[in-house]
Structure formats: C-alpha cells, structure tokens
C-alpha cells in the first residue's frame, strides 16, 4: 500500500514538527490514517518475534479454526501504532521511551483489513523529574468492529 511505501524511517526528519510534552493536550485526538494490513506485513511481524503458529500462515489450517481464516497475532497493534499515524505524530519523537503498555483484545485483525485508529493523549504528568504522557488507542476494522484497545505510558524526550 502507498502508505507503507511512503513511511519515513528517519525519525529525525520531521522532529521539529512534533509536539513536545508542553504542547500535548490530554483529551485531544491525534491525527491518524487508515492502513491496509497485508499478509506480508503480518508475516514480517511474525518473523520479528518468532511467531510460527499456522493460524498466521496456513490458510487451509486457519479455515478449520474458530476464526475461519488467517489472522494476525494479537500484538500486531505494535505495527499498527506506527502504520496508522503520520510522520509528525509525537510517538515518533526520537528518545521517546516506552515505560509499559496494556492492551485488551476483542477480535483479531486479518489480512487485507483496512484498519483505523482513534487515539489521544489521556494524561500527562511529571514523576521523578521525568515527563510522562499516557496515550490511549482503539483500533477498528473496516466494519467498525473493535480489534483491540490499549493504553501506554511513555517518557518524553527532554
């Protein structure tokens, strides 16, 4: 998909366009972009964490399961977080440190799903001289079904 080909891997390039901790308004929606999840993207993600279960790769096997076809691993939201947000999103600020995340899973993402994200900063605070932002996120498929929802704690660069 075009949005994948255009992905800017140099996170410094748009650094000056991104909000710093002071600019981030809890409750304000983040800009997001739809993303078509391909079988190839799922397979690459699986490779990166050593996933080998046939439900992600073998269509004939996957058809015999409760899901009736190929699915993505639940943790595919790790990819979706970056594929569904633009280059100026503050999650890409160099030096952003991930402190922890929690995710709830409703239904699996599948190959060729067109995935959308609703996301915002939920809270920001200072603890032990570190600048924290809490972000919350909900991913939907093309039918409007919730795939998963999650919250993360990041330490912002200073």
């Amino acid at each position, binding site marked *: 998909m075009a949005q994948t080909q255009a992905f800017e891997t140099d*996170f410094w390039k748009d650094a000056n366009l991104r909000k710093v901790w002071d600019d981030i308004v809890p409750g304000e929606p983040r800009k997001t972009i739809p993303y078509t999840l391909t079988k190839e993207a799922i397979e690459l993600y699986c490779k990166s964490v050593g996933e080998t279960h046939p439900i992600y790769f073998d269509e004939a096997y996957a058809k015999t399961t409760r899901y009736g076809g190929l699915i993505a691993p639940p*943790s595919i939201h790790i990819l979706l977080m970056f*594929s569904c947000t633009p280059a100026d999103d503050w999650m890409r600020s*160099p030096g952003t440190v991930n*402190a*922890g995340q929690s995710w709830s899973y409703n239904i699996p993402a599948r190959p060729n799903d067109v995935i959308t994200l609703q996301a915002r900063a939920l809270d920001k605070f200072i603890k032990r001289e570190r600048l924290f932002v809490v972000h919350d996120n909900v991913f939907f498929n093309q039918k409007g079904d919730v795939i998963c929802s999650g919250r993360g704690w990041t330490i912002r660069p200073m």
Partner: protein
Amino acid sequence: MTTTFEKLRAGDAIDGPAFAVSRDSIRLFCDASLDYNPLHLDDEYMKGSFGKTNFGGIIMHGMNNFGLISRMITDWAYPAGAIHRRLETRWVKPVRPGDTIQPSGIIKAKQVTEKSRWVLIDVVVKNQTGEKVATGEALVEFPRDLFCH
C-alpha cells in the same frame, strides 16, 4: 496433554520461547513494527544522555518483550481453544544486543463470570542472568463453547 480450565491450578507454569537479541533482531523489529526510534538504531545518539536516562548503547524495543509474551500466551491458549484477551506489561530493565531473553508465566487465579471463564497469569521476561527485564499480567478466556484442536 491439552490444557483445560478445570485442570488448571494456581501456580501452574507456562514456559515461553528463548529469544536471542542481536543488532539484526532489533533491526528486523524496526522493519516489522515501523518503530525506527534512534534508541534502537543509533549508537552515537545512545552514547549521550537524554532526559534522566542514559542507556550506554542501543536497546531492544520494549514492545519486543510484549510480542514475545503474547506469542507465549497464544501458543499456550490456541490448543486449548482459549483466547488471549489482555496483556499488561511494564519494562524493568533495558535489553541489549547479546542478551538472551525468555518469557514465562505462572497461573495466578481463575474466575468464572456469568458468560465465560477466565485465567489470570503473572508473566515475566528474564535475561540470561535471571534478571527480570519485564513484568506483567495476562488474561486468557476459556469460552464455554471451546473450539479445540
């Protein structure tokens, strides 16, 4: 032996896969996740301090831990017809190239609700010296209409 909700007991263990962390594995995770934060790529940048943190070199993505824990949970749940419903994690120590990490889980509690059955699992990722690098909790649903393989 297939795991069943009835047979599970608090204290039962789940073993996850060992994972060798290298510069290549971190780079692959960048490509797979599209997370190209210089924390994971740029040796020069990581020599410096930023904020209150100095890692002294590139580090693995915290979410690589998350992906490994999730893999352990789903590989355990699928054969039992169970569904991975939630994962909460916190990163305790950075992971660096050359480390070998391994997730594991301990059944913490079982709960029956009006419409389903649930298992809470304490999860941890340790490095090759036994240090905890990530901790958390997972929730797995064992639906009454089990769809087993």
